[in-house]
């Protein structure tokens, strides 16, 4: 909390009790019934939703989230029913979204960076045990046949089974079999229906064959007891896994080979003495392993460093080229004697108005080596690999970004130039300065003072200019020697996206570690550049 610094702040905070009460009375008198009604309805909706959420969360026994939701709901009600807290009333709606989807997710990324979250490690140990056992299940050779009726309840399938001695029980993938007594049966004693469930007919079963064939209903809470599965939808058989889980010492034993897979506490998976690993594993905190991996292994460190360098080079070159062209054009068209300046201006902001993701795709078409307009028409059928040669791809990206970005700089510079009083130029000319000197020594410094913050934000924008890179070259040409999926033109953010979401294996932990590294880089650049800007401001 900061202390008020200006006179105005202090005066307003020092309001007397009386004037505050007066303000409240005035406020109450002015707020009509309509306002109150709207307030009550809106808060009612918010509260109804939170009560529903609390109900579901309590059922799931997710106590931390229950506490958070209850707390936020109470705070919101308190803010809006209180007669004070006026600023909070205006800030709360935006702040709630900001806290959840900006601040919380940044912190959450930080947490994920210290886990092995990703393909094969995305759940709890109990889930991993179940998944392993289910995936290695085989039908018991001489198992009895259970009479089966497939039931459905709000989209979830259950098995209603009649075992050989006539006991009827029901269970689903998530809840083990339990005995029921109120099932309807047919003449042979096989259960056919249960109150509250819909029994599937043959045609329904055929329609959803795959889901039903994949269903595995545990016999009891102990996964080692096996589960029931059905090959045909009318009878079920007992399947047991050759993996046996021992909850006491937390190991998995393969009953046919006798190999014991133990949880080594580090990788979040069962590992045999030979080093063989059973997957899926589960999510564990791995400390700095992801960061060590990112910086330590040559196959990732190499690409990471070259991607970082290219990201800086790309962002810097983008700002310089677009600012250079924009400034040049602003000077050229900042001449009152010139006619039709508005026409030029409208045409030149067209690239800025065209959606950027489409521009990149259109340029990708025009730069296509075999069929593109540039090679076929401009270069008369030449075969120049604009997007597949490492350096030409980099050049293409800078060039297309120039097309995309110069109109913005042109507009900004035009505005900034017009705000520089013309007397300055006249005075300098009278003093004998040549036009170039006037520009370089007087206009440019003045201009830089006002556009420097925009240049910094443009740098930051291009630092994370995902769309251009991903749509134009896809980050390619691919670097085949790298240990992660990166190419020559990938910038940090597109590398993060590709490691996390493209390809078969996803490594959320490593991705988040990259994100954290980028956070730190961006923060560093911002701090340094803002200090520079302050220095520039003092020039004035």
């Amino acid at each position, binding site marked *: 909390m*900061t202390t008020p610094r200006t006179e105005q702040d202090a005066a307003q905070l020092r309001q007397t009790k009386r004037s505050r009460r007066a303000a409240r009375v*005035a406020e109450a008198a002015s707020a009509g019934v309509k306002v109150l009604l709207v307030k009550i309805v809106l808060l009612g909706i918010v509260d109804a939703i939170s009560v529903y959420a609390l109900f579901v969360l309590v059922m799931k026994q997710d106590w931390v989230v229950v506490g958070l939701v209850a707390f936020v709901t109470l705070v919101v009600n308190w803010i809006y029913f209180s007669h004070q807290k006026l600023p909070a009333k205006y800030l709360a709606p935006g702040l709630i979204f900001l806290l959840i*989807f900006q601040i919380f997710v*940044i912190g959450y*990324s930080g947490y994920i960076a210290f886990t092995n979250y990703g393909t094969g490690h995305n759940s709890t140990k109990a889930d991993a045990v179940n998944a392993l056992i289910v995936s290695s299940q085989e039908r018991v050779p001489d198992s009895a046949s259970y009479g089966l009726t497939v039931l459905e309840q709000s989209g979830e399938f259950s098995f209603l089974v009649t075992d050989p001695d006539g006991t009827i029980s029901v269970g689903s993938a998530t809840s083990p079999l339990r005995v029921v007594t109120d099932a309807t049966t047919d003449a042979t004693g096989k259960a056919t229906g249960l109150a509250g469930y819909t029994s599937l007919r043959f045609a329904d079963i055929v329609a959803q064959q795959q889901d039903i064939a994949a269903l595995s209903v545990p016999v009891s809470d102990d996964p080692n007891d096996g589960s029931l599965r059905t090959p045909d939808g009318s009878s079920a058989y007992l399947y047991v896994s050759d993996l046996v889980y021992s909850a006491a010492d937390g190991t998995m034993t393969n009953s046919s080979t006798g190999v014991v897979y133990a949880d080594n506490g580090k990788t979040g998976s069962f590992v045999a003495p030979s080093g063989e690993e059973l997957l899926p594993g589960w999510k564990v905190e791995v400390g700095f392993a992801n960061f060590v991996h990112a910086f330590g292994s040559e196959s990732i460190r190499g690409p990471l460093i070259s991607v970082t360098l290219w990201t800086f080079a790309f962002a810097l070159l983008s700002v310089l080229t677009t600012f250079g062209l924009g400034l040049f054009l602003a000077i050229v068209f900042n001449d009152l004697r010139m006619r039709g300046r508005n026409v030029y201006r409208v045409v030149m902001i067209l*690239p800025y108005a065209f*959606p950027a993701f489409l521009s990149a795709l259109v340029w990708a078409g025009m730069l296509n080596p075999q069929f593109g307009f540039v090679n076929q028409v401009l270069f008369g059928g030449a075969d120049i690999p604009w997007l597949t040669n490492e350096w030409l791809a980099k050049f293409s990206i800078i060039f297309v970004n120039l097309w995309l970005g110069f109109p913005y700089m042109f*507009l900004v510079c035009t505005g900034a130039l017009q705000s520089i009083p013309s007397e300055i130029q006249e005075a300098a000319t009278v003093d004998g300065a040549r036009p170039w000197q006037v520009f370089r020594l007087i206009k440019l410094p003045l201009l830089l003072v006002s556009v420097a913050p925009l240049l910094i934000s443009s740098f930051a924008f291009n630092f994370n200019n995902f769309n251009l890179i991903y*749509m134009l070259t896809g980050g390619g040409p691919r670097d085949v020697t790298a240990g992660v999926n990166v190419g020559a033109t990938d910038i940090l953010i597109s590398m993060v996206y590709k490691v996390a*979401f493209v390809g078969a294996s996803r490594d959320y932990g490593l991705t988040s570690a990259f994100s954290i590294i980028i956070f730190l880089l961006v923060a560093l650049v911002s701090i340094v550049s803002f200090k520079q800007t302050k220095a520039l401001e003092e020039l004035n």
Partner: protein
Amino acid sequence: MRIAAPETSDQYIPTKRPFNFGRWFSRTGWRHLVGAVMVVFSAFPLLYVLSASLHPGGTLITANGLFNEVDLGSYSTLFNLPQQPYAAWYGNTLLIGTITSVCTVFLGALAAYSFSRMRFRGRRAGLLMLVLVQMFPQLLAVVAIFLLLSGISDIFPAIGLDTQIGLIMVYLGGALGVNTYLMYGFFNTIPASIDEAAKIDGAGHARIFFTIILRLVAPILAVVGLLSFVGTTNEFVIASIVLITPEKQTLAVGLYQFVSQEFSSNYSVFAAGAVLAALPVMALFLFLQKYIVGGLTAGSVK
């Protein structure tokens, strides 16, 4: 007091000088030359896409013959692709963009109003925080957003992963930030005496905000709304991981996949999609051009 301008030579300039091409060219003519080059550079890719979209059954290679055939076939093909629900993408983009920008403007204006008109503890820190938080772009936390939404899906499938409401909520996380800062500056230019006069007349804060202030700051609301709409239309990363079902996706996600699947064979259909997709944004831009230029330069010039 200003000193009267001395008698300078410009008073002796004859009213009509003979036209001299060399002089005209060195003064303003060359500027038109630069202008012509820039017009070609700026407009050519757009004309290229328009021409490609009008080529019947065109591929990338036929697109090179500019406007040598004109036909609207690609536009009708576009709406009849079995795998690519273009009309749905289009509607989704407009819907998500409109809701996001309206809510962004509203939330941002609420915050800007309180920062501009009220004095409270933590105000300076709050303003500073808005600027700092904005430096960390949301797309860096894309993994966390994905996992958060998939967590929400377990409780509220209606607002979790693969829902448009979920996506809009993520976008609204960025509603406060640079936008608020821009609006805050504009709110400050509206004299506080207007508020006070209204207060004396018995108007409450809500009434002052909704009926007086919001109307006075309309230009900046238009700029922020447009920038937010454009930003949402262009957004690819978060939309691509949140929206999974093709019918729910946006143009950025859908058209990218369309292009990456069949790039050169169906180029005219993509081009038609691109032309239609660009229309609303470009129309808004040209319509609000005056305000945008004002808004951008207001940000740059102190």
